[in-house]
């Protein structure tokens, strides 16, 4: 009696049926990689040091793919909670609350559907990055295991931020409050991380703060497998630490979400 299945299907139907929502979602990755890839590419100012700055990546696009993928996951996930407010305002929430479903499944359906919506974006972004001139290059190959690392990192980042913003949304009745919070934190989360720039390019204090941002962990883990292909044991340990940190954080936040929502979701 969880209700998670039918509620997630509902979210996905709403997505696929809304052409604006659906198409913009799919075009967005192309815009992002093309724009970010050239706008933030500061390696052109010091070509000699580019290998140092980019951690061994052959070009900036290859370097930021991990960051753009993570940021995209982050932005989509932050809006997962907005539907909760719509459901409360437009009425469906009343129906869900009087049905014999777990109350947490109402929120988890938003989280799960936002994670599913990110997946085609991931594919499109990678294809777009690969196709643009001087784009993504897998110099040392790319294995199934690497794909797994990439997908796991994005899924975990999505879980982390959609949980946080869903819990916030369950306590709000006004759409503008959640938009305000999203706008307040989205760019700081993106720029106070290693998503677009390496620590070498950052002021020291910024690089130190960014170390603790889960966005950095995901960006770095994906970057590591894209740049290096087959990883050494030391590199795997590092990736394991990043993914482990993300997993612990995601599990904790999902558990907290379940607890808070079962207790507190209101009409």
């Amino acid at each position, binding site marked *: *009696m969880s*209700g998670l*299945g*039918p*509620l997630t*299907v*509902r979210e996905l*139907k*709403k997505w696929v*049926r*809304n052409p604006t929502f659906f198409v913009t979602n799919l075009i967005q990755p192309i815009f992002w990689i093309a724009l970010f890839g050239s706008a933030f590419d500061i390696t052109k100012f010091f070509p000699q040091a580019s290998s140092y700055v980019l951690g061994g990546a052959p070009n900036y696009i290859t370097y930021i793919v991990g960051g753009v993928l993570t940021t995209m996951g982050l932005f989509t996930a932050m809006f997962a909670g907005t539907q909760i407010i719509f459901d*409360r305002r*437009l*009425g*469906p*929430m*009343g*129906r*869900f*609350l*009087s*049905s*014999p*479903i777990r109350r947490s499944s109402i929120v988890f359906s938003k989280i799960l559907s936002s994670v599913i919506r990110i997946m085609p974006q991931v594919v499109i972004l990678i294809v777009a990055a690969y196709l643009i001139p001087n784009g993504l290059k897998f110099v040392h190959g790319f294995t199934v295991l690497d794909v797994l690392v990439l997908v796991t990192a994005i899924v975990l980042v999505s879980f982390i931020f959609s949980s946080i913003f869903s819990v916030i949304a369950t306590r709000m*009745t006004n759409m503008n409050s959640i938009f305000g919070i999203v706008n307040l934190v989205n760019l700081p989360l993106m720029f106070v991380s290693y998503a677009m720039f390496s620590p070498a390019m950052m002021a020291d204090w910024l690089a130190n703060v960014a170390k603790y941002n889960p966005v950095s962990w995901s960006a770095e883990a994906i970057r590591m497998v894209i740049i290096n292909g087959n990883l050494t044991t030391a590199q795997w340990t590092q990736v394991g630490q990043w993914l482990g940190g993300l997993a612990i954080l995601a599990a904790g936040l999902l558990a907290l979400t379940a607890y808070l929502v079962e207790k507190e979701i*209101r*009409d």
Partner: protein
Amino acid sequence: MNGTIIETKNLTKIYNGKIKAVSDLNLEIKEGEIYGLAGPNGAGKTTTINMLITRISPSGGTATVGGFDIGKNSLEVRKLIGVVPQDFTADEDLTGRENMMMVSQFYNVPKIKAQENCRNLLKLVELEEAADRLVRTYSGGMRKRLELIIGLVHEPKILFLDEPTLGLDVQTRIQMWNYVKEIQKRLNVTIILTSHYLEEIDELAARVSIIDHGKVLITGSPADLKTSLKGDIITITLSDEKSAQLMKTVPGALEVKDMGQNTVKIKVVNADESLPNIINFISQHELSTVRLTVQKPTLDEVFLEYTGRSIREEDGGSDARKLAINMRRARQ
């Protein structure tokens, strides 16, 4: 058929520590009946329903629905009941049928059974043609009809109808009444109906509780409540003062009042039985009448009798409106 299916004991709900929406409410609803909760806006009808359907938890008292405690066994309660809330709950971006199928999955109704239930219910409220259109294209009346059957898709034993005809035109309202009667007859569900349209309760409910300020004032069948007022009123206007004076001596009246302008108001136990006597009296004394009206008490009069004011006045009353607005806010 006659077992008690819902029972509340001193059920109380206080919003924000100060707004007492429901206070020590006691109800006993029997299996298979249509039970009405009547009262003005802000009387506590919706709050009572929301507690019984486990959407909100009570501040005090207990209640059982279908034998299950609403606090300890809320999940079991929710499996048993169907709900048609006051507001629209269907998702506008899905079709009517998709909404119904989604809700049926909440109750684990097997797919084939659910499809069959949907077909039958859509037919019952004449929504077959619109079933596969997006709900956002529906008219207000169609959406109300859809809400009515979404609450029934899992064949509940108990159906809660909260103001099912609020905001509908008279024709559509009568149509809704017919659907509700049909549902009760065919599906043998217990229906709990709230309404501030007293004629709606009168038309549908076998028993009714009149609620005001969160308390039950009186419970009974609409017919009994009306009879308890002891009095149909017959108003007769005669052609002259002398006739009017004579008319006042008519035997068998509970009360006779001179209303002036040759008009006499006669209160009798039952107008159907007293009217022939009155007409005989008129012809015996060769009185000439100008106008004769018979007024049977409606639930409005019952409401007036027990609350001391009319439900219509209450609708416009600023205190009640403020209370209703505050309660609505508190619920959010």
